[in-house]
């Protein structure tokens, strides 16, 4: 490592300026979150009489407890649960149907294979934002408003995941499938015994990305969950703001905001290697 930057490396004051620049960047990134955290530990009175304090107060347990147990429209604990179900449903659902599709595309020759491939590709061009009204109508007709299946199903087709698994399956040596055939493995047995265990790093990396994608959904839950008991936490925050001129209850809202980012942030930091890998590979 020592010679990696070699003579181009900055020395002395230059080095400190580099650190200073980065620290300013980190501070810019952290500041909004720090403020939110401080606001979630103080009293409403501390906030509505600006300027609010810049150091945490002593109302941490009170504010978070109130948010989790009663919230504003619905207990935040319920919304967290809804978000968890939705994020897991989307991540696991996308992975499952993409694995099966990729397996079929790579290891079989069946009529319509090419067409199917292009159909999946086309879904890239149809993000939920461009088909909101008709998709909403479909969900409404199925009676899936305010349901987990309504939250999850329209989002689990995945071209990216299918392509990623296809790409990976192509790199699995042909001989492995042949050896499995000679060993007597039928296709699905090969899939579960050989292919799936070999894909686990890819699956994990993709899971990190898809979990965050699912957790952070906003527009779709906003449309189809009219019942506060079905709100997800990310879209539920906005619902906590009173209409009209009333003061929002900032400590509760900010506690909820912190709670909304803790699970995905833990996933990103805890699985940093997998996260970076998933991010880079899913964009290839």
């Amino acid at each position, binding site marked *: 490592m020592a010679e990696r930057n070699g003579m181009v490396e900055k020395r002395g004051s230059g080095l400190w300026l580099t650190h200073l620049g980065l620290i300013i960047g980190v501070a810019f990134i952290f500041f909004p979150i720090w403020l939110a955290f401080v606001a979630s530990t103080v009293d409403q009175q501390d906030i509505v009489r600006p300027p609010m304090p810049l150091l945490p107060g002593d109302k941490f347990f009170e504010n978070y407890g109130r948010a989790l147990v009663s919230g504003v429209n619905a207990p935040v604990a319920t919304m967290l649960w809804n978000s968890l179900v939705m994020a897991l449903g989307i991540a696991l659902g996308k992975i499952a149907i993409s694995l099966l599709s990729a397996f079929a595309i790579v290891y079989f020759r069946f009529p319509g294979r090419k067409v199917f491939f292009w159909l999946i590709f086309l879904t890239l061009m149809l993000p939920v934002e461009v088909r909101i009204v008709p998709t909403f109508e479909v969900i409404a007709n199925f009676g899936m408003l305010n349901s987990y299946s309504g939250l999850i199903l329209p989002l689990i087709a995945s071209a990216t995941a299918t392509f990623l698994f296809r790409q990976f399956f192509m790199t699995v040596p042909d001989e*492995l499938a042949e050896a499995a*055939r000679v*060993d*007597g493995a039928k296709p699905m047995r090969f899939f579960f015994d050989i292919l799936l265990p070999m894909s*686990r790093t890819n699956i994990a990396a993709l899971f990190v990305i898809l979990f965050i994608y699912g957790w952070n959904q906003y527009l779709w839950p906003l449309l189809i969950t009219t019942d506060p008991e079905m709100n997800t936490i990310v879209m539920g925050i906005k619902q906590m703001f009173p209409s009209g001129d009333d003061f929002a209850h900032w400590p509760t809202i900010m506690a909820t905001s912190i709670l909304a980012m803790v699970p995905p942030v833990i996933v990103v930091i805890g699985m940093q290697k997998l996260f970076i890998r998933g991010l880079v590979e899913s964009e290839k």
Partner: protein
Amino acid sequence: MATLKLDNVKKSFGKTDVIHGVSVDVEDGEFIVIVGPSGCGKSTLLRMVAGLETVTSGEVRINGKRVNDVEPMDRDIAMVFQNYALYPHMSVFDNMAYGLKIAKVPKPEIAERVQTAAKLLQLEPYLQRKPRELSGGQRQRVAMGRAIVRKPAVFLFDEPLSNLDAKLRVQMRLEIKALQRELGVTSLYVTHDQVEAMTLADRMIVMNAGVADQIGAPLDVYANPETEFVAGFIGSPPTNFIDAALVGGQSGRIGVRPEHIALSDTGLLTATVGYSEALGAETLVHLRTGDGAQITVRQDAALPIPGEGETRGLSWTDENVMRFDASGLRQH
């Protein structure tokens, strides 16, 4: 206990014929090596026996039973792949046991069969390791072990030694031979390496462009090649070919092996000496004839090495001459 019979087996991919009809009867316990240059169709032939490729026409029979349309697992065969094809996420034990598990062999019997094979292959200390924790030679043994535990009627080997370094290749070659002797299982072995073919085979099939040019015991094939291709492919350095017209013959070419040519002051032909390779026990002398043909002479190390640029005569005796007609077939 199995025989294997190929009866005019052909293979085409679309309109391209890759195998033009190969027939052979393999006896029980026989070790057959299919040898030929890359692209000659030898692997395709093996894969048809394995059931990994469909047979376009002709028949494959194992123990007299036609298996053309039988799935690989039901053919009673086991295969060792070129890159071993070990399941990377399974331990050595599980790799060997996988086929037996699928066949629903009782657990104690699986353990016993894997243990026996592991002992035979000196793999016992490694049973719980993953393939990536093994050396090349050990992986090779696991691939063999996976074939052995199934107690198949026929072993199929697809260039199993080509990924090993030279020293290990010689060692594994001997091991495979010893193992096959001990187990007495009918074997079909594909390689492009003629030394492997010569040393391993009871009989070998020399393939050339989708045709079995010659089938026979290694030394018979070496001594009596049926075609110009076989004469050139088997033997190292290869047979020298000389235009028959140059030495008073008719059409076609004659072939003389390097060890059958002697350098002399006068000879049937003269040639200019190029470079020489002194290998210790013998010396290879490379020459060029007047019409530009390359000639290699293998002579005893005790004989003097001619200087570069000298003109020497080449002589040989008539019984060592192989005559081939214009189409490459041997004339007797």
